[in-house]
């Protein structure tokens, strides 16, 4: 999910401080994706526990990893995607929290325990999930259902569609269209995904994350984007739409992990428990318009979110979603393919 609002975090590392609760009792330092938590949650946590909460943001898993590996200390909690959760675990950077023994853990969907390194939830707590599909302007394209529709439209209207500037997401679309796993380690399969994207490249206007204002204005008609677009779709349902393509899509999930180097471990554990509460979890889902991992919170959701099949897809659609795994050394295959896609 390295496409999440890159610009906003590049612009400002927001330090959100809560002076009301700033007392001697302690601190909690979060390191999260940009715009990926409802500020009200931090506010409430700070007030309830008398803790001063700070929030720094990153734009990609790799950026976070590089910073933690470079020895950045002072952060208590990070929000890695599932494959990065596995990497952090392999590198021995995570603190065992016994989250699964906390009283609220029963609220968490067992299917959301996706990290291979942490199948029981002894380290991290599932946070939120979503799909990566197509965000489009209905004034330009009345209906769009699939990647086939997307590329057919692009062939007739060159340069009016965009895909993500993301190695694995965009090559992933090629793999999905070829009926392969988005975690393929077979150089031949990755190569044919590369060729698939290259075949359409002339019709693709851009590889970029900054599509929201362009789709809203109609400068781009459709763009490969994540479910966070629902934030804008629900505001203007007549103009904008988001769809999970029929051929399948990738999904992402982030987990809440406590770092081994965390200076405020006790508060970090309190935060995990706090996030298990359905009434807190639901605050985030309502603001973020993404998938919830908290079963109890689902019942508290307003109907327009709960019944929205993009935010809360039915089982048949969920079955077509694939999640990225860490590929270790085989990542190189994707790097080479992606450099070719962007150069040729």
């Amino acid at each position, binding site marked *: 999910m*390295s496409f999440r609002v890159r*610009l906003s975090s*590049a*612009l400002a590392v927001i330090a959100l401080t809560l002076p009301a609760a700033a007392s001697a009792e302690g601190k909690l330092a979060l390191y999260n994706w940009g715009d990926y938590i409802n500020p009200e949650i931090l506010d409430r946590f700070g007030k309830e526990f008398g803790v001063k909460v700070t929030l720094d943001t990153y734009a*990609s898993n*790799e*950026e976070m*990893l*590089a910073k933690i*590996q470079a020895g950045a200390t002072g952060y208590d909690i990070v929000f890695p995607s599932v494959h990065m959760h596995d*990497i952090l675990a*392999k*590198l021995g950077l995570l603190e065992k929290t016994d989250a699964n023994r906390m009283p609220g853990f029963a609220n968490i969907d067992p299917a959301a325990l996706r990290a291979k390194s942490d199948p029981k939830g002894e380290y991290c707590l599932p946070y939120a999930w979503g799909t990566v599909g197509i965000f489009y302007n209905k004034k330009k394209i009345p209906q769009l259902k699939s990647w086939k529709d997307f590329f057919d439209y692009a062939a007739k209207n060159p*340069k009016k569609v*965009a895909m993500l*500037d*993301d*190695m*694995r997401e965009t090559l992933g679309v090629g793999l999905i269209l070829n009926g392969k796993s988005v975690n393929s380690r077979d150089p031949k399969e990755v190569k044919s995904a590369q060729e698939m994207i290259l075949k359409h*490249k002339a019709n*693709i*206007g*851009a*590889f*970029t994350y*900054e599509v929201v*204002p*362009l789709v809203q*204005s*109609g*400068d781009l008609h459709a763009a490969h984007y994540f479910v966070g677009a629902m934030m804008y779709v629900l505001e203007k349902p007549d103009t904008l739409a988001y769809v999970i393509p029929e051929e399948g899509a990738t999904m992402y999930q982030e987990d809440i992990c406590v770092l081994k180097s965390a200076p405020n471990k006790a508060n970090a554990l309190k935060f995990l428990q706090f996030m298990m509460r359905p009434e807190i979890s639901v605050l985030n889902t309502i603001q973020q318009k993404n998938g919830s991992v908290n079963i109890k919170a689902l019942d508290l959701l307003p109907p327009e979110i709960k019944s929205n099949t993009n935010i809360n897809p039915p089982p048949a659609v969920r079955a077509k979603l694939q999640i990225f795994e860490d590929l*270790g*050394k085989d*990542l*190189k295959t*994707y*790097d*080479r393919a*992606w*450099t*070719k896609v*962007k*150069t*040729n």
Partner: protein
Amino acid sequence: MRPARRPVRWRLVGLLAPATLLLAGLFLVPLGIMATYSFLSPGLYGGVEWEFYPFNYGRVLGAPLGDVEEFDPVYAAILLRSLRLATITAAVCLVVCYPAAFWVSRLPAPRKNLFLFLVTLPFFANLIIRVYAWMLILRPTGFLNTALDTLGLAAFAPDLMFTEAAVIIGLVYVLLPFMFLPLYAAVEKLDPALLQASADLGATPWRTFVRVVLPLTAPGILGGCVIVFIPAFGNFVVPALLGGAKVMLVGNTIEQQFLAARNWPFGAALAMLVLASILVFMLAVALRAGRANPSVRS
């Protein structure tokens, strides 16, 4: 004489020490780390493995092939494209700024200062915000095309967003002040009496320009070109935002190696190659300048 000179020399050492330490600590040491990393093998999750691995350069240059690391001409193509765009950027900046520098230098002092202030004004806003603003100008329904539309020139409205032209516009915009200031400094020093003398001695305006103005402002032209060319060569924000990342430049490739691909040594090797090509370029420029105008050498 001797005892008198000594304290002066120590004072000099003292005065130069901060700059020397700063350069050594913040430039040479990181450069050394980069050079070292570029000969190591990548760690699985970023960082490096401490084993000698010479193939990072081979991937670009093709020299030591072997089956460990296959050579790929794509990287040479990326370097050449970056070189081309940086050269165009420097040339456009020069064409825009050279006449402007003359104009500003002939203004009365208060207005001159106002214009100099205006040139540096963009530095007060964040680079990314300024580049983002160009997206609003260049996009099909953006300010440029809306303006053309209002003037009844809709037929000429270009679709510049996500093109190489947009990248060049962005780079020129960002780097223009770096060209203007050294040019202005050189032009300002040009004594109008020399132009008059040249004319009095029968030189045509063109001859005066080629034989008097150009040689005397050459240091400014060179300085401006060099400090525009170098950041244009490695810039990755502008091609990503305005070029729609469809035009991969070397800056973007290096960023990809350090983040998405988690291959620090290859990123370091690419960065070292950029450094080497800039050094070669600057050396060539300096040699040519020295030959064309011996006074520059001294």
